[in-house]
């Protein structure tokens, strides 16, 4: 099948690679313009770069900008990180080039209700252009996680298709057949329902995390280890253990823009501040919790101190620092003239690039290097290699044996035995 994909996002690149891999002729248009200058770092997803290379070499995947994509075929996947207006601009171009019935499949998370608007817009455009064809809009929200996106694409736990015409349902299912057959659940629903499912899943997961963070704050005040509480909740089969770990806040692209967009929709549609607002507010505060603990430990005197930070990626397994908790922590420390030395197995370069003119930022090449001579260690991302560090070396390298753990990676008792002051989220010493 001939497929055009638009966008320079994680979704766009992963989808392009996987669809090319299953034999389709894919044209990826990263941006409208004269030059191809993709900005997505494909290396942030393990094995993605390799897969893309293979598909390009096979000739099934082509990178272009503009016209080649519009004229490539009739199936257009919109995966840009863009507003509805920007999507409409792309739709204009696609319809201008259309030489038959056209299928617009939206992968991007647009505000609730935007798909219906887009459909009306596309109908109107086609009428204006006086073309004797039809245009179909469908929504195909992807539930792929950064770090395991290729595997998630192969075996989706849930495949949702939002569409209102048989023709487009058939067309998309044909395209996705190799993956849909592996899906644990498959649903074809109206457009608006697809939107709500996508946002709803995100919001529910975020709600669980913020709830657990609230439990952690309470545990800390009441001198209870939140880990016990977490295990208790997880043991209840109605609750389960996923997305139940307290921590220093969530981040990443879907947990920011999409959640905010959902909160706005709730506010505008129901004319009330919804639960999601509270979820976001708790998370905003949680994203500074490590800073607050550090601040209190040093009684607000951070000028000239050095804080080592382990992890910068918004979650382990990715090089992406998009909306990562590391940003508010760094900004807060820098504002106090505090030196920061960061180690991340994958995201160090991205951090260096983003803050190249920040004299208070050092990027270390190893976990041990980062902590050498630092006044404290803060853990932001739960990378595998941080689970069992050489504690005696860590103790020696730190100027003060104090650890602020935003991911609850260690046992407080054990840390005490190793001679550390240990502050985690809802466990360890409270401050």
């Amino acid at each position, binding site marked *: 099948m001939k497929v055009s994909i638009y966008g320079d996002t994680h979704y766009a690149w992963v989808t392009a690679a996987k669809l090319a891999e299953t034999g389709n002729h894919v044209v990826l248009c990263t941006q409208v313009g004269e030059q191809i200058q993709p900005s997505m770092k494909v290396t942030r997803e393990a094995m993605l770069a390799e897969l893309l290379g293979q598909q390009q070499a096979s000739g099934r995947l082509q990178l272009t900008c503009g016209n080649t994509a519009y004229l490539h075929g009739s199936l257009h996947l919109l995966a840009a990180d863009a507003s509805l207006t920007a999507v409409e601009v792309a739709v204009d171009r696609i319809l201008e080039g259309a030489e038959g019935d056209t299928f617009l499949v939206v992968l991007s998370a647009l505000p609730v209700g935007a798909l219906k608007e887009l459909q009306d817009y596309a109908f109107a455009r086609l009428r204006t252009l006086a073309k004797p064809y039809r245009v179909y809009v469908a929504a195909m929200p992807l539930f792929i996680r950064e770090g395991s996106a290729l595997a998630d694409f192969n075996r989706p736990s849930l495949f949702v298709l939002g569409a209102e015409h048989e023709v487009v349902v058939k067309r998309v299912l044909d395209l996705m057949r190799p993956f849909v057959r592996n899906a644990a659940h498959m649903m074809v629903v109206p457009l608006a329902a697809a939107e709500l499912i996508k946002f709803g899943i995100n919001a529910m997961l975020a709600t669980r995390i913020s709830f657990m963070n609230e439990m952690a704050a309470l545990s800390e005040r009441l001198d209870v280890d939140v880990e016990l509480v977490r295990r208790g909740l997880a043991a209840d089969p109605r609750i389960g253990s996923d997305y139940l770990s307290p921590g220093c806040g969530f981040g990443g692209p879907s947990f920011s823009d999409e959640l905010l967009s959902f909160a706005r929709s709730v506010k505008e549609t129901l004319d009330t501040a919804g639960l999601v607002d509270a979820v976001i507010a708790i998370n905003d505060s949680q994203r500074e919790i490590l800073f607050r603990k550090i601040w209190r430990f040093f009684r*607000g005197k951070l000028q000239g101190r050095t804080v080592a930070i382990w992890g910068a990626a918004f979650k382990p397994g990715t090089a992406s620092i998009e909306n990562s908790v590391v940003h508010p922590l760094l900004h807060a420390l820098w504002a106090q003239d505090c030196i920061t030395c960061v180690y991340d197995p994958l995201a160090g370069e991205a951090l260096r690039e983003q803050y190249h003119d920040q004299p208070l930022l050092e990027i270390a090449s190893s976990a041990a290097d980062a902590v050498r001579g630092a006044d404290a260690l803060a853990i932001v991302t739960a990378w595998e290699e941080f689970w069992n560090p050489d504690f005696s070396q860590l103790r020696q390298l730190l100027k003060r044996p104090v650890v602020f753990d935003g991911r609850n990676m260690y046992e407080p008792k054990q840390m005490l035995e190793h001679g550390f002051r240990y502050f985690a989220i809802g466990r360890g010493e409270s401050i």
Partner: protein
Amino acid sequence: MSEPLSRTQLPAWQQLNLLAHSMQNLHLRQLWTDPLRAERFSCRAGPLLLDFGKQRMTAEVLAGLVKLADDCKLGQAIRDLVGGATVNNTESRPALHTALRLPVEASLKVDGQDVVPLIHTSLNHMRDIVGRIHSKQWRGYSGKAIKDVINIGVGGSDLGPFMACKALGEFIPEQGRQLNVHFVSSIDGTQIADLLGNLQPETTLFIISSKSFTTVDTLSNARTALQWLLADVGGDAELVLRHHFIGVSSRADRMSAWGIPEANQINLWEWVGGRFSLWSAIGLPIALTLGMAGFEEMLAGAHFMDRHFQEAEPTANLPVLLGLIGVWNATFLDIRAHAVLPYDGRLKFFPSYLSQLEMESNGKSVNRLGHSFDYATCPVLWGEVGPNAQHAFYQLLHQGTQAVSCDFIAPVQRYHEREGEGSTELLVQHRLALANCLAQSRVLMLGDSCVADGENAPGFRRYRGNQPSSTILLDELTPYSLGALVALYEHKVYVMSVIWDINPFDQWGVELGKQIADTTFQALSDGHCEGFDGSTNHLLAAIVRGGEELS
């Protein structure tokens, strides 16, 4: 050298007295024989238009007032003011609020030292503080960002910043939207008790604003604030003071003694008068509300007025005209009350700000040499948002026995940039306010002659008219135009003081009461209710007895 003539001996003064006498039976409506009167008696400077056609003023009177100003050496007095001469003779210092508005490239030497770099260093300190608070990087003791700022100050450390913050609420920049700025002034603790009940100590920052850092009202509120925080923290005063208190004062030593760390002190100078101090670091709440850029817009508007004041001819000089009109009304026409009536709810607190500026400056009865004089000076000044006052005290303006002069103030444009729901209705509301503004000043001037057959109404429906007023139109209310408006009144006050031969920069009248309050406080604390005058002894006893019965 012979002693200079007293004001009343000046020929121009005597001439004006005669003119005032001859106009006694002349009604305002009879002055409109000159077809060019409206143009002749109006004057524009930047965003402000002053219309004084409705004053009991003739070309002859105006010429006489200009001559009087000349005889009083107003031109030299203006140069003295802005040049840093010792215009505050009883306290031997200059009054350099105009210097606070000078651009960074300017230079002004006072006692051999250029004060402009000092002023801009202080502005930069403010900029740094505002930046840290707006970027949510000024942290309270717990590490949370500051959400509420409480300005504790009274008089000049309260009225100006409060008025400006309330007036310019729609100019709050994005980064200032989540910050709440509050004001606490009253010694009885009402305001602070209300506020503290609703705020979180860990996210609240206090600005202690006091030029002398001895003002008992302010320090008593500050002590309450400190105790509130200490109770929350558990007693670590150094921590609390470092993260929750900023001091603004000319006395670094006293700020330090109170415990405010040096990094949180912003210095003022002796030559900034309290009621002229909103342009200095006392204006920190304004900068926190508007952002530094908005505050600097205000400074620029005021600086524009300073230049106009120095450069324009007396007959085209807004502050000079407004000041001369004020003297004419108060002294020569013997009008003892003056109402300030903004037709814009945003300027609600402008009249109370002006009541301090004018009455504390010119509410005096001795001249610069300390000699009593026998002419009326500053009138009683009060005011309210005009449309609301129409339902309150306008009755007295229209039909009472008092002669009252008025200043009507209104913006020409409002809501014009607003879009969406309700914008048309708001535009209509603004037009209604303007219509009322013009209608009221017209009826005050003409009385019932502005309607047909008005003279034949029964007595209780008659309107005498003949109440003089000026109208000041702002193109629109912005930080710049408000800056210009405030500076206009500051200079108006100075012009009047020069004509009256008053030192407008001291306020000895407020001292004795403070002193007596100290001994009275002692008496109340000890329960000794004797040794005062009969009335005070009696009241003290009633209070002490009341306290005992309740306890």
